[in-house]
């Protein structure tokens, strides 16, 4: 019944919204900025979705619901972790809610689903989490309304390859989740590590969601100096535990999300001393980050991970862009230009953008330590920053043109020259 009445009401509502939009734009009063936020609210990714919403909401609350003077209408839609559902919900947000921009998405595939949708609808889509490399690399020209405030999968692992090489590691084994995100992360690491003189001697691909790593651990070659891992979700908890349990003491260098604060509180002391690299650590001792961590923890009862930070920073960027636009929605094209020109100080550090609409930000090499921080009275696991690579772009040091000539990182690219 309600569905039917709603259906009847729809044309009326839409007409009303349209008329309202007209009257608002003709008058010079506070504008309404409607933001459609797509995250998984239900399903296995619901918890991550909540962190994403919380991050954005925290900033929105801090500025009392106004971006650059415009009232923000923040509409969250459940994309259920399914790309097809994300497309459908996007059309709802665009068609019914008349949003000016879409933000969010979690999985890389959702990013790939929403990017062409943004082209079709000629509406700005800001990817705060989806990190598929090619969205801002070889395929960007297909998506003129696409903008990224998050990262590319290989962006943090490329500096990590350099760092690992500088530590004197000669031979490394990679163990990474067997899907596109894993391929791109490993590819970036391998490329830089081998260009620096290191050798990847074995690549192991456990399927996404692997719980028992026993069969993989027993095949690890003995002469490796370290192990590179890229673990997602529960895998991140299991792998270090089982590796140490098997008596292997080799250092772990973890790709991006392997030691994110999202999983860190559930890990045991066996991960102390493990390394990882990402554009954010909750243990960054800057005033901006300390304030963010404290505010987030006070409100939501947990330490923010990168899922929360990335969306907090996205909100910050939209706010700054709206301020520059004078509190008025300037249209998608103009807004993208403003966003690209921004330089802000975020919890993760300074953020600016390259000419392919991807952030240039610091990449932190982090080491898990158990310590007290920010005046909290309990010793907890924190990702202490031990080295900062400042202003890292998605192309690392290769330069855009040279980088884009090579194919996207894949399961077999770069090829494993030193595997047998």
């Amino acid at each position, binding site marked *: 019944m309600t569905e039917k009445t709603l259906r009847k009401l729809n044309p009326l509502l839409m007409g009303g919204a349209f008329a309202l939009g007209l009257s608002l734009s003709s008058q010079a009063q506070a504008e309404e900025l409607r933001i459609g936020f797509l995250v998984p609210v239900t399903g296995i990714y619901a918890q991550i979705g909540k962190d994403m919403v919380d991050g954005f909401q925290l900033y929105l609350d801090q500025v009392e619901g106004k971006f650059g003077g415009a009232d923000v209408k923040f509409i969250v839609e459940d994309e259920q972790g399914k790309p*097809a559902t994300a497309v459908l919900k996007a059309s*709802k947000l665009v068609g019914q809610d008349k949003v000016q921009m879409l933000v969010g998405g979690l999985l*890389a595939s959702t990013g790939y689903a929403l990017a062409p949708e943004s082209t079709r609808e000629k509406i700005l889509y800001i990817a705060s989490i989806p990190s598929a490399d090619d969205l801002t690399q070889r395929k960007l020209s297909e998506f003129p309304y696409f903008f990224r405030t998050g990262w590319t999968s290989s962006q943090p692992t490329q500096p990590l390859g350099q760092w690992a090489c500088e530590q004197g590691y000669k031979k490394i084994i990679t163990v990474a989740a067997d899907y596109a995100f894993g391929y791109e992360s490993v590819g970036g690491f391998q490329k830089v590590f081998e260009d620096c003189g290191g050798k990847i001697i074995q690549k192991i691909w456990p399927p996404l969601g692997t719980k028992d790593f026993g069969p993989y651990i027993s095949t690890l070659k003995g002469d490796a100096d370290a192990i590179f891992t890229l673990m997602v979700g529960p895998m991140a908890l299991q792998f270090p535990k089982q590796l140490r349990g098997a008596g292997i003491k080799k250092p772990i260098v973890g790709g991006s999300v392997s030691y994110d604060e999202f999983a860190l509180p559930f890990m045991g002391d066996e991960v102390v001393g493990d390394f990882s690299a990402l554009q954010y650590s909750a243990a960054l001792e800057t005033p901006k980050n300390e304030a963010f961590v404290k505010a987030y923890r006070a409100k939501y009862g947990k330490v923010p991970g990168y899922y929360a930070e990335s969306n907090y920073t996205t909100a910050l960027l939209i706010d700054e862009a709206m301020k520059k636009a004078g509190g008025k929605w300037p249209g998608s094209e103009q807004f993208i230009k403003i966003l690209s020109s921004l330089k802000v100080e975020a919890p993760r550090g300074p953020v600016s953008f390259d000419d392919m609409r991807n952030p240039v930000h610091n990449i932190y090499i982090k080491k898990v330590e158990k310590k007290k921080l920010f005046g909290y009275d309990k010793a907890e696991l924190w990702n202490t920053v031990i080295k900062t690579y400042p202003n890292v772009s998605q192309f690392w040091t290769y330069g855009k043109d040279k980088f884009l000539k090579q194919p996207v990182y894949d399961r077999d690219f770069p090829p494993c020259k030193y595997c047998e």
Partner: protein
Amino acid sequence: MVSQQIKILMVVAALAVLVLVIPHTSSFVVLLATRALAFGILAMSLDILIGFTGLASLGQAAYFGVGAYLTAVLAAKFHFGVGWDFWLVVVFGVVAAALLAAFFGLFAIRASGVYFLMITLALGQCVWGLAYRWNSVTGGDNGLIIKARPDFGLNLADDVTFFFLVLGFFIVSMILMYVLVRSPFGRSLKGIRERELRMSMLGYNVWLHKYIAFVIAGAFGGLAGVLWAHTNGIVTPEDVVLTTSVDALLMVVLGGAGTLVGGAIGSAIVLLLREYLSTLVPWWQYVLGGVYVLTILYLPTGLMGIPKRIRQGLKRSDNKSIADLASARR
């Protein structure tokens, strides 16, 4: 026979309402209805197996996936199927799915009951694994994007035009399946559902009947996949995963197995609850769960069983009131 005509009239009336109402709603509702129709074809194809042959399959998403991936690979890699050749893609999708079903059927039809369920589940997951792992062709977890819907004089990029196309396919599929299940072949399928042993003793080739039904169901699944790919503009392993098969199964059970239309109704209700209700309230999952539980508990024949139950209820109360009257007179 009269009641059969009334049923057909009701379906026609429902479709007419769709034609009249949907184009005047928002693009979201149009897209939602398009999805329900495309998925409805899949659910109906599964109903041929569950409702008419008595084979509960958990692998129907495999054929759906073959249709969808074929469409996406041709469009993304070869730029094929974006003009009039869309019709060729439809044919290819149907044929490819039928061929896969013909291959899988060789393994699956040997088993029955729970074993059939498990074999189809395993075979379906093989297709999922291929979609997930065969990166160079399927794009792996990232999926494949179809940049634009076909344009052959009729531009399908317009959601309403595309809706009518899918509706057309839906109606044609429904008629074909209806004819199929009412044909002598369909009746012998029902015979197999009721008592397989007797059918084989009567001289029917039970294996062949089941096999053909399996292939036909796969073919319609492929058609649904082709339409599904263009509805969303992206194909990912999510479309082939087990839950898609389970969804189709639940839709058939919800709507009423052995009714064809039931699958379509189930598809409409599930998608409506999942995609529309979820834009209104956060507790939509409880509603969906509640609908499932109540249907299984009180309507074992599905939502399509409601009219019959009402009629039976009325008859019973009629009889009762006549009896009351009689006893009162005495």
